[in-house]
Every structure is written in C-alpha cells, then in structure tokens.
C-alpha cells in the first residue's frame, strides 16, 4: 500500500491506451483536475502526443523516458491482463484499471503477479481513486469531489457518487476516495486498506460502500475487529433484494447458496464496531451528524 500512501499531485502518471476514445477524453479530464500526467502509450500513435503529452509504444519506453511510477490503464477488458503485465514489467508500482468485464481468471493471475512484485493494483474494474483537490486516476466525477475528512471506500461507482455528492452538498468532503471495484477477484480489497486508514492523517471517518456477494465486507470486519482504527466506520450495503444466482451488474455481486448475503455482512460489520445503514439517507444523516452538519 506504500504506493497508495505516497500518491499525490506530484506522482508521475502514465496513461495506457491514451489515444482511444475513452483514453483521450479522460487523459484530458484527469490532467485538468491536477493529475501529473507525463506520458501515454499508444500502438497507433507512438511518437506523437496528446496536448503535449508524449505517446510511447509501450510502458518500458514511457517509464524510461519520463520516470512514470503510476499507471492508469484505459484498455478494454480482454486486453487488461496484458496491459498490467506490461506495466509491472516496466517497474510501475501503482496500477489502476477501469475496464468493466475483466475475466476472473485474468484477475486472479494479475492479483498474484502484482503481489509478487509488490505493485499496488486497484481494479479490475474501478471508477478510480482520488485525492480530492489534488489528483485523480480514473473518472470519479468532479461534482462529487471535494477535500474533507471522510475516506470513501467503495465497490460501486454510482452509489459512491450519490453518497459523495450528498455529503459535499452538506459541506463534507473526502480525504481519499478509492473504488476497489465490483469484481470478485481484485487488486486491492477493503481489508487491505485498513492499515492505511488507521495512519492516514487527513481521514477522520471511513465510509465503506459495499454490496451483496463475496466475503470482502466480512474480511474487512474481521480485520477491523482484530485491529480497531480508532475512527468511526460507517457502512452502506446494497443488494438486499438481489436475485440469487445472477450477477447484479457487477461480476462480484453474485450470491449462491446463502453466501455473500447482506445479513452475513451486516452481522460481521456491526460486531466489529462499524455502523451499518440500509439507506443512503440514513448513512448521510449519520455522517453529517458526526461532523456537526445538518442533513
């Protein structure tokens, strides 16, 4: 998690797949927000540039020429595995991948690869990470971003936008916003963020947005119970009415045989001292109350 703790507006960032439709647009949006983008990769346009950002044929060339240490990967899902392998081989230590629909066996391979090389991987599918007011990797919407005391850790993009936006309307911004994504196998899991949350100075409270499926919330609860962070943890869980046996939009939001239900997650989180809410309004009101804001 060191690469994550050190991420800032000074971090030198490479955009993989910078010349595609998505890549081009988000390269500009991220740079406008303050992200220090130093390079892009593009097979078709290597040697060229996007608004002065030089494009290279591959990660190794880009890292060699610019000293990039972080990568935001804007390639399609079936190309994500090769792209992350390339970034790891080039010495990148923080990789964020945004593609929805990365096959789970690819993700398993990448999880093991990035761990072996001590690379922090956020994804497979994430809206990204942000240090509000400084820099972002991904496409978290500016309308919901503002500096403040709340760390927002989330599986879902849109539900976190809703929560972040409503908190910002009440004058409560974020210390860090991190989308772990909705995949079953992923680069960084909720529980792995706890040590960072404990030591993160700007963070005064943690809002965790989880959902049905998998065991990530339960793992987070076990880690929190074993090592409390001394900061309030508020949780919003979606998917009470999810249909068993069907992935609800997120590949990881799949229940079968009673595993991964909201009841199991709620029980574990509450036992660990976290507060769990069943509606956005209730979570927002409680969070506002913690900081003396009126919902």
């Amino acid at each position, binding site marked *: 998690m060191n690469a994550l703790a050190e991420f800032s507006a000074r971090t030198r960032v490479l955009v993989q797949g910078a010349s595609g439709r998505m890549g081009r647009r988000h390269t500009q949006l991220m740079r406008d927000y303050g992200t220090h983008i130093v390079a892009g990769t593009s097979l078709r346009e290597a040697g060229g540039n996007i608004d002065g950002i030089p494009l290279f044929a591959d990660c190794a060339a880009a890292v060699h020429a610019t000293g990039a240490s972080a990568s935001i990967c804007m390639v399609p899902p079936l190309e994500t595995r090769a792209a992350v392998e390339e970034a790891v081989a080039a010495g990148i230590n923080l990789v964020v991948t945004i593609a929805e629909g990365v096959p789970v*066996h690819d993700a398993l391979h990448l999880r093991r690869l990035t761990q072996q090389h001590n690379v922090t991987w956020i994804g497979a599918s994430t809206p990204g990470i942000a240090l509000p007011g400084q820099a972002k990797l991904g496409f978290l919407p500016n309308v919901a971003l503002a500096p403040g005391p709340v760390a927002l850790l989330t599986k879902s993009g849109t539900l976190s936008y809703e929560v972040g936006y409503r908190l910002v309307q009440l004058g409560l911004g974020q210390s860090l916003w991190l989308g772990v994504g909705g995949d079953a196998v992923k680069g960084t899991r909720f529980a792995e963020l706890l040590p960072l949350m404990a030591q993160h100075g700007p963070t005064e409270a943690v809002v965790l947005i989880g959902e049905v499926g998998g065991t990530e919330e339960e793992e987070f609860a076990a880690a929190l119970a074993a090592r409390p962070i001394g900061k309030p943890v508020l949780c919003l869980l979606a998917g009470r009415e999810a249909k068993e046996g069907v992935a609800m939009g997120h590949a990881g939001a799949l229940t079968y045989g009673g595993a991964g239900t909201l009841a199991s997650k709620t029980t574990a989180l509450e036992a660990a001292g976290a507060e769990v809410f069943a509606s956005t309004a209730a979570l927002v009101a409680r969070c506002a109350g913690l900081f003396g804001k009126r919902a």
Partner: protein
Amino acid sequence: MLLVEADGKALLRQYGISVPEGQVVRDAAWTAPAAARVVKAQVTVGGRGKAGGVALCRDATETQAALARILGSSIKGHAVHACLVEAPATGRECYLSILLDAGAGAVRVTFIAEGGVEVESHTLDASTSRLCAPDEASINAALAALTDDAAVREVGTKLATLFLREELMLAEINPLFVGPAGAVAGDAKLVLDGNALHRQPGQEALLRGNATLYPDALRKLDEGFDYVELDPKGSIGLITTGAGLSMMLVDELTARGARPINFLDIRTGQLRGSPARLIRVLEWLSEHPSLRVLFVNIFAGITDQREFAKLLAEALAAQPCGGVPVVARLVGNGSEEARAWLAEARPDIAIFEDLEPSIARVAEHAL
C-alpha cells in the same frame, strides 16, 4: 453464472467425467420408465432439495406425480421450465470441489470423503481443503494431499482441466458417488464467469441451447448491458445506470413496499447518441401489465445529461409504455440545463434534482 445441473453435467461429460444416465423433461405428460428415477428441477439457484425441487421416485407413477408437481412450480423465485430425470446412482457419497477463492487470491480444492449433501455442516481444515496456485499441476498436488482414492483423483484431474480451460468460478460435485465401478457425479454445480463468455464460444452455445433458463445472462451477452427481471408483477420500471446505485434503489423502494420489475445498469456512457438501448428497455417493461410508473435515475459523472435527456424523450416518444407516469431524477454533468429542457419538452414528467423526493413520488404512484 450458475449452470443448471443438466448443462453442468454436459460439460462434465465433455471432459470425461461419468454422470448418471438421464434426460431433460419439459412436459409433465412425458411417459416415465417403470424403474426408479430421481426428478430434479433445473433452475439456476442452489438449495433445490430443501425447496422441494428434488424427488426420489420408486416407479413411473411417482415419477409422473413428481414431474406434475415440480414442472411449472417456482423455486426461490425461479420458474421451473425443465426437470432432469435420472437413474439413481449408488456408492459412497463424497464431496469434491474446485473453487476460485477470491478472498485468498488462489484456487481452493476441497474433498470430503463422506457426508455428501450436508457439506455445510463440515468445518474445513487442512485434511479436507487446500489452497493452491491456478494451474493443473498445483490443483492435482492439492488433491493428492487430500485423498489416496485413485477414482477420485482421476475425476479431480479432469475437473481441474475443465475448471481452468472453461475459466470457472466454481466446479462442485456433490455428491460424487464412489463405488467399485468408479466415481459418478450425482450432481453438478458449475459457476461460469460471465466476463469470459466472449472467449468461450462453447459456453455461449450451451446457454443458447437452453435460452429460457438463462434470460439474464443471454440478454447481457446480446445487449451489452445488465437488465435483470426481479418481479414480473412489479409496478415500477427502472431506467437507471450504475450497478450499486440501481441495487440500492431496488432495496429502498422494496423497503417502502413498492416493487420494481427490474434491475438495470444501462451504462449511459455507451449510448453514443442513440435511443435504441432505452427503447429496448421500455419495450421489455411495456410487456408487464402491472407497470404503473417509470423511474429514471441518472447520476452523470461524465455523460452529458443534456444529451441523455434528449435520448430519453426520443425513447419515450417511440415507446410510451401505455402512457404511465414518468418520474425523472437527473443530477450531475449538465443536469440543470437538461432538467430545464426536459420540463419544456415533456411537461408531464415529474423532474427532480434530489433522490429522496423522487423516490417518494415513485412510491406514491406504485402503491
């Protein structure tokens, strides 16, 4: 997604694993054989036995009675269109599974020599379950540490090949009948990775061969977005984007006693200037006579709401769903202008900036 047992067994057979003789029956008037049979509902959900979806039948009369009872019934909200009718297998009942353990970031191999169906009551330890790397040699080594039984190890080797080549999330055989003649898979619980379907053409063919059983998965494959039917008799049609926010809306509406027909993650970023995707969804919703209100909720991080509002108006003009009331909550990029434009173009639509009052309005229409 979970394959129904008959399709799971077709895959097992393809990889050389023995399964009992059986056939899929869709018609209760089917002529049953005189010998004993097991009748099992073919639904994409676990826990069939406890929900009344499995019957052990001694003769043709019992088999036909079981078919008449199970076909057309509903198991945990899944309609039963087909039953698998099989010759009962015999032998020691074991449990064998290969699981992609997301939490551990590894493959988990589990073998329990007895106990069969009641596997939930077992506590797994190193004598029954091992984690390993996702390759055939590691999976075989893990299984070898759990059992000496040659028949089980042979099935395990084939199951490992299947698990890796087919990119499964879970391959479970419970019970695995082990007898003098070898090992036979009494059941098959295979969970596919929907994200790998694009490079698994055999799986796609399997799903299409049984299209009524996998409507949600095939819809996603064909349309490129997620629409899941939750309650065909619900009263709210959801036009929403984002999986988490859409799930939360379903939860909050349901908590108020209002029932959404569907879950939807339409992915506004992929509309690319065409109302076609919206029209498709409206067409599906219009097929439900119970539809009483359409609820549009779009939080646009990047998508331009002005463009979305125009596409919404076009889609509603093409498919008005019988003129049911529409509640639209638009927030985010360009939403102020979008709301003003929509208010002028469609004064009948109730337009909101905030979520809570829009939910309240939808509930008023739905209840």
